[in-house]
């Protein structure tokens, strides 16, 4: 098996994540799809790191993980705040910044 297959899998997962962001309406599911996209890019980083024999790709995957963790924490706090004021977690209902 060629190492390219990992890259194909990564591209496929990234695409599925992008489709989820476009299709789903529940804000939490949209967030999960963004996580899927970040994870797919991590797989590409790790595979490239192995192809080139260079450890920097793994480090970039670490940094992506940290950024993803920050994004989840802040994003979920925003979702909870919006849910508190509107009683809805749908991205369609949050059309206005104010109530």
């Amino acid at each position, binding site marked *: 098996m060629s190492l390219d297959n990992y890259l194909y899998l990564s591209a496929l997962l990234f695409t599925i994540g992008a489709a989820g962001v476009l299709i789903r309406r529940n804000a939490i599911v949209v967030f999960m799809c963004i996580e899927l996209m970040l994870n797919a890019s991590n*797989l590409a980083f790790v595979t490239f790191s*192995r192809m080139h024999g260079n450890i920097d790709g793994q480090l970039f995957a670490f940094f992506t993980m*940290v950024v993803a963790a920050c994004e989840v*924490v802040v994003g*979920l706090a925003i979702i909870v705040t919006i*849910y508190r004021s509107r009683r809805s977690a749908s991205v369609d209902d949050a059309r206005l910044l104010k109530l």
Partner: protein
Amino acid sequence: MNIAAIVNNQTQSPEAVLFFILAPIMVLAALGMLVVKKAVHSALLLAVVMVGLAIFYIANEAPFLGIVQVVVYTGAVMMLFLFILMLVGVDSSDSIEETIKGQRIGGVLGSVGVGFLLISLLSRAELGQDYVGLDLINSEGNVQSIAKVLFTRYVWAFEVISALLITAALGAMVLAHRERILPRKSQRELAAERVRQTSIPVAGLPGPGTYAQHNAVDIPALLPDGSPSDASVSKVIAARGELANPANFRMKESNGNSANGEAGEE
């Protein structure tokens, strides 16, 4: 012989078997995320994908990253997702109707296009050199070599990332904090309020009836005039029509004429 070694730009066959078993499962789980109705099921399918990715990291000679993936993603991040799902409501499923017309089909077509673009790009790309593998770099340990690079070349990025983490934690605290508009009620005010309101009796609701042969929660207690009290039984039991008739537990030959009881007809 090293199982992760790359010979003629090809991996060893165990890795190929692992890939062709695990990759379809991951793709199916990711597709399932898009079509399942409940957000909880999406979260569980995402956990499947993340565990699969962790296994692939380990197969790709990044064991430390694989373990961090399990701990951080399937542990912390998915736990956070499920926690927020429970907070927001488990059954907050998607609405079916589209706010923008044709957005769903447009989204599917657009992402299929992006997928084709990415995959055709990958299939045409040439590295121009043989795949190297990480044998040399991992020879003194994966963690050691990561640490060596992280604390020399990327030490500035490491510091910036720590600042980002602190900012995110602070931001989440600020967002989740709720400003109190009214002062907190004291015990005394709560007690006064409870006495003043009329919907619930201050002494509490009466308990269900206790009879010589039956004392379960489905029989109403009798009021002083002999009629059953609605307040003494749960509304749920009454709505189900499962109330027992207290007249059944009355002594038969006590005072003949009135004991046949239309009291429990409800």
